[in-house]
């Protein structure tokens, strides 16, 4: 981080960005400490305009959302270990970042996810079972993106940030930005990670969004690791600081603090809806699990680091806060646990029941207007399959 300035080349990094920023640095926006204490922030607050009851209701809701999201993740991980999924991208530790961002959305907003946004998908009303198909290998995404304004998962790192920007440009042309009507004004949120911040597409998305003042929030979950590569391999400055160079504001929020993430994301989305353009939100968090179920983090990181981040668990701090302040009783926690168990059952049974697609369905939907060539290829393969005695292969036309 320390790099001394050379005469004539301006200030050095330490002068501009300050000393090395352990634990997110002084600019980390936090409203609920890891110990479950509410703290004030000069610019961002949670619960303004809400009654005490309404506020407690929201916090209980976040708790429930995070517990259910963690259950989706642990069930899916277990399903992979049982051979029911080919792979799973775990979100353990990132529940607050995803629920805070997901709950800040309005129905008319649109989400462009990576492949790890299971908590955001849950917030958008996507049946978690539909997330499993991609990882089981029975489809490339089973949900209807138009139904929940939640796009398909994107595997090529960062590509979706451009789609988000273009979608936001479309919103501008549709006159749904800056009208002052809260039911009408809309924004886009683009999810990506610290690794993606190195991609050309992400940087181009920043440039396009800034140039056209597009209503998009760039929501980066900095979970410190891109598979085996630490954040230091991606950037020499705090990621959120990059935004200013592109011409829009950037903030760093405690991504393990659901209240702060919610407050910051909501404010950023509102800026976008109001026509004030893009914002970069860096949710500072930690990938507690492996990159995916095929990864082995013991090869490249210290268990000490993981232990350190365990103390900042996003769910535990909300639980402590609710209990200490008498905002939730045992029945509430029991109820959430029972709900999580039901969800786990739904995922286990549902996943095992997901059928393999018919082979001939691979020919479906290649084009909106199918070509004769493809039709002939499908028919040729169907005839080939049927040439085997006792073949029961049905046509896969959907």
């Amino acid at each position, binding site marked *: 981080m320390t790099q001394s300035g050379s005469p004539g080349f301006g200030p050095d990094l330490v002068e501009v960005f300050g000393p090395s920023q352990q634990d997110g640095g002084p600019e980390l926006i936090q409203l609920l400490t890891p110990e479950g204490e509410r703290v004030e922030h000069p610019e961002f607050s949670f619960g303004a305009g809400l009654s005490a009851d309404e506020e407690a209701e929201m916090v209980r809701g976040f708790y429930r959302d995070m517990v259910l999201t963690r259950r989706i993740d642990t069930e899916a991980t277990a399903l992979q270990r049982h051979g029911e999924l080919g792979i799973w991208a775990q979100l353990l530790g990132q529940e607050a970042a995803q629920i805070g961002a997901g709950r800040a959305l309005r129905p008319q907003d649109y989400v*462009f996810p990576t492949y790890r946004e299971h908590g955001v998908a849950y917030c958008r009303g996507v049946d978690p079972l539909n997330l499993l198909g991609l990882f089981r290998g029975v*489809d*490339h*995404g089973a949900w*209807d*993106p*138009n139904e929940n304004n939640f*796009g*398909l998962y994107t595997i*090529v790192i960062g*590509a979706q*940030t*451009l*789609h*988000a*920007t*273009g*979608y*936001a*440009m*479309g*919103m*501008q*042309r*549709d006159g749904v930005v800056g009208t002052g009507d809260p039911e009408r004004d809309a924004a*886009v949120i683009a999810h990506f990670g610290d690794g993606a911040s190195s991609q*050309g*597409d992400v940087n*181009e*998305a920043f*440039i*396009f969004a800034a*140039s056209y003042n597009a209503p998009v929030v760039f929501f980066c979950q900095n979970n410190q690791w891109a598979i085996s590569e630490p954040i230091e391999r991606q950037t020499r400055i705090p990621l959120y600081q990059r935004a200013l160079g592109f011409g829009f504001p950037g903030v760093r929020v405690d991504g393990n603090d659901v209240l702060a993430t919610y407050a910051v994301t909501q404010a950023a989305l509102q800026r976008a809806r109001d026509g004030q353009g893009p914002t970069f939100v860096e949710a500072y968090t930690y990938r507690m699990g492996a990159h995916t179920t095929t990864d082995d983090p013991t090869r490249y990181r210290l268990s000490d680091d993981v232990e350190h981040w365990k103390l900042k668990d996003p769910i535990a701090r909300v639980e402590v806060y609710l209990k200490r302040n008498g905002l939730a009783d045992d029945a509430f926690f029991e109820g959430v646990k029972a709900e999580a168990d039901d969800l786990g059952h739904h995922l286990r049974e549902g996943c095992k029941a997901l059928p393999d697609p018919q082979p001939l369905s691979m020919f*479906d*939907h*290649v*084009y*909106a*207007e199918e*070509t*004769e*060539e*493809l039709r002939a290829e499908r028919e040729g393969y169907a005839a080939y399959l049927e040439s085997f005695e006792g073949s029961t292969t049905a046509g896969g036309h*959907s």
Partner: protein
Amino acid sequence: MSNQKITLAKGLNMGLRKAMEDDPKVLIMGEDVGKLGGVFRITDGLQKDFGEDRVIDSPLAESGIVGTAVGMALRGYRPVVEIQFDGFVYPAYDQIVCQVAKMHYRSKGRNKMPMVIRIPFGGGIGAVEHHSESPEAQFAHTPGLKVVACSNPVDGYWMIQQAIASDDPVIFLEPKRQYHADKAELDESATPEPLFTSRVVRQGTDVTVLAYGPTVKTAMKAAEAAAGEGKSLEVIDLRTLSPLDMGPVLESVRRTGRAVVTHEAHVNLGMGSELSARITEECFYSLEAPVLRVGGFDTPYPASRIEEDFLPDLDRVLDAVDRSLSF
């Protein structure tokens, strides 16, 4: 409306204008497409008449252009993006091949991708490197994309409108050296042929010559010269490269028994290779000679002072015709 004589550049410009008039969802985006009207002036005057929201000067980033166009298409627009030169399409390759081409498929048809990616292609204009490429095979090889190439002003006018109306993504190749070369009479009241069809542009009996884009003119000149020597060449303008419209090709080759394919792209694994394979599979017993390919050599595009040696010309097409006939 009285018919007018137009160039290919004018035909494309008029076609784009008509498409924008017909459908308010049609947007144009690219580098310098606004006030300048594009480096080839194809979008001349469109920003003035349709505004900066519909004719969008983009930052200088091809992946950004195509990637944001994906988002616009998801929002219900029909973006027409201009890649300034063929050699500059590669920064957008991932977006085109992984995102544009697959969106309809992976979404089970829930997300359409009605996008046109216009690419001026081919050489012969004395340009510096990366300005004379023929990348069509790279896109024709990709399921989910459709690829067409226009060869003349009237087709330019109709085909661009048809491509924009298509619900599938279309790579639209424009032979840049033809932009301002020849004029043809346009009848705007005519009914065009469907987009994904090939067309016999000169009838003949001895050898079928298959061409598209810039080599259609080369093939026509070759046919003219061959006629003087008593050889009758049938010339087919393929127009569509993916899907291929094999009907007219196979019908012709079954009559002539001989086929020569010519394109500016490298011969190795080019469109000629696919055409040769399909003709051989479908017309094996009608063939009197192997299908021959005349194209750019398998070198990088050379320095422009020797590009005429790289590009297939009348003599090299006739040489292939002679080899076919003497087989």
